[in-house]
């Protein structure tokens, strides 16, 4: 369980995070979404006490991060995808974390196998690809078999197979009762991965919701095409329905498809297409975050 309450972080005149509150529940993957510069990284760093918030709080399992009994075995985090000494091997990088956390080297080999990095474990990290670095970061986050995972852009630099692999891994970790908070600026990465989404823009909360509810909210009305478009528009407007022309012969109508069909039948208007006007999550996301970025 992660709880962010009225978190604010000010850098000089810039409000990086502005009175942000949300929670991430155990057993679920929570996507933390926002355009670049929205304040995601700042929020995640405040959550693990890598930065001091101006006001507000962020707690993990009900406690501020530094007050956790055994932070490394409670929270696993990725906050920077390239935080390695270039001259140290991948395995030794993990050993230094394990040593500090009182974790044995046996677990190091386990997580290396888990992220499929055994082959490269003996090489210096300066020769790693971005994808390998992401896997090594993830291995580090998983070392303590933590109940809570905080991952800042873990899919950056992964190829499509890597993203699918990450998705399966995080889903199985959440299925085991863990709390997983994953940030991204790429919605498609999150859409199939997360149960819940927290969307922020300009440091402010836009919405927190279940992914499926956000998608349901994306259905805005009905799309219809007709060679007699203007007659249809007139008929619908007389019925008190808002219509918008789309393309040469289309209309976007704020009404159920059945209602549009009935009006067309009554007026004997030919239809070429009639269907629900479902926006994609991407459109909803853009709409929501743009709305929030206009100055109030």
């Amino acid at each position, binding site marked *: 369980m992660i709880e962010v309450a009225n978190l604010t972080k000010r850098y000089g005149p810039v409000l990086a995070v502005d009175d942000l509150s949300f929670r991430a529940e155990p057993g679920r993957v929570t996507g933390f979404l926002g355009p670049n510069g929205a304040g995601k990284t700042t929020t995640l760093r405040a959550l693990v006490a890598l930065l001091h918030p101006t006001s507000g709080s962020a707690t993990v399992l009900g406690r501020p991060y530094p007050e956790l009994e055994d932070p490394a075995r409670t929270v696993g985090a990725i906050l920077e995808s390239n935080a390695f000494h270039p001259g140290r*091997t991948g395995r030794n990088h993990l050993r230094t974390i394990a040593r500090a956390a009182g974790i044995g080297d046996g677990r190091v080999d386990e997580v290396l196998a888990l992220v499929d990095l055994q082959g490269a474990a003996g090489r210096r990290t300066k020769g790693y690809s971005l994808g390998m670095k992401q896997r090594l970061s993830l291995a580090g986050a998983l070392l303590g078999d933590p109940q809570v995972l905080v991952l800042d852009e873990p899919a950056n630099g992964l190829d499509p197979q890597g993203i699918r692999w990450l998705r399966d891994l995080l889903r199985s970790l959440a299925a085991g009762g863990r709390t997983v908070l994953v940030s991204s600026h790429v919605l498609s990465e999150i859409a199939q991965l997360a149960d819940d989404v927290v969307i922020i823009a300009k440091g402010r909360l836009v919405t927190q919701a279940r992914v499926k509810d956000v998608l349901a909210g994306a259905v805005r009305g009905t799309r219809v095409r007709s060679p007699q478009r203007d007659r249809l528009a007139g008929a619908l407007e007389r019925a008190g329905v808002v219509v918008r022309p789309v393309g040469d012969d289309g209309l976007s109508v704020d009404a159920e498809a059945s209602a549009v069909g009935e009006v067309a039948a009554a007026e004997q208007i030919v239809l070429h297409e009639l269907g629900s006007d479902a926006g994609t999550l991407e459109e909803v996301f853009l709409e929501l975050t743009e709305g929030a970025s206009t100055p109030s």
Partner: protein
Amino acid sequence: MSTVAAEFLKLRTTRVPYVLLFVAVAIAGIAAAGLVGSGSLDEDRALALAQGASFGTMFATVLGILLVTNEYRHGTVMTTFLVEPRRVRVLAAKLVTALLTGVCFGLASAAVAAAVALPWLASKGESLPLDGQALEGLVRLVLAFALSAALGAAVGAIIQSQVGTIVAVFVWFLIAESLVGVLASWLLTDLGEPDPVSRYLPGSALGGVVGGQGSEYMLSGPPATLLAVAYIAGLSVLGAFVITRRDP
């Protein structure tokens, strides 16, 4: 304890500490060869050898600087603080690691200096008795290495930038302190005479830990060591203050 163990593992798993150790030890050997070969060793032989070997302490300072600033340079400081969010403890572990590594550097330098000097002196029919004075030279040299490394770690915590720290430390040691010395002796005494100010500066105090030639310009032995310890303690407190407040 585990934090100190992790710091040692960090040192052992990169190359630069070994290079620094090699350079420090090589300097000890070359200095010993120079002193014996030129026949300039007088009565205080052990101390003179220790002073020769103490040129390598600047590499212990570099090691101390890297111990802290490498983490900021490569971003690993975040992982370190995730495992141990009490940042003062991280700094304490790094200071302990610097001190202990400095001890190792000092012992290794002394061993090499002895390995060069003893057989050579013996072949010239001279000797270097392994007596109380030799022990004092060893202790002073080891202390100088340990304190030099700790000083680097403390300043590293304050400045955090690797290049910035190295430049600041060596500009201070090699240039600023000399300028203060020149200025002080110009204002307060005759040029070239020992002035009453510069001996209390940190670099001079560290130099005085070993002492030896030129010691009329500095404090020597216990007072120098105490002053150096006080400087390091003060810088460490400042470092702890900065490291807890400035976010990585």
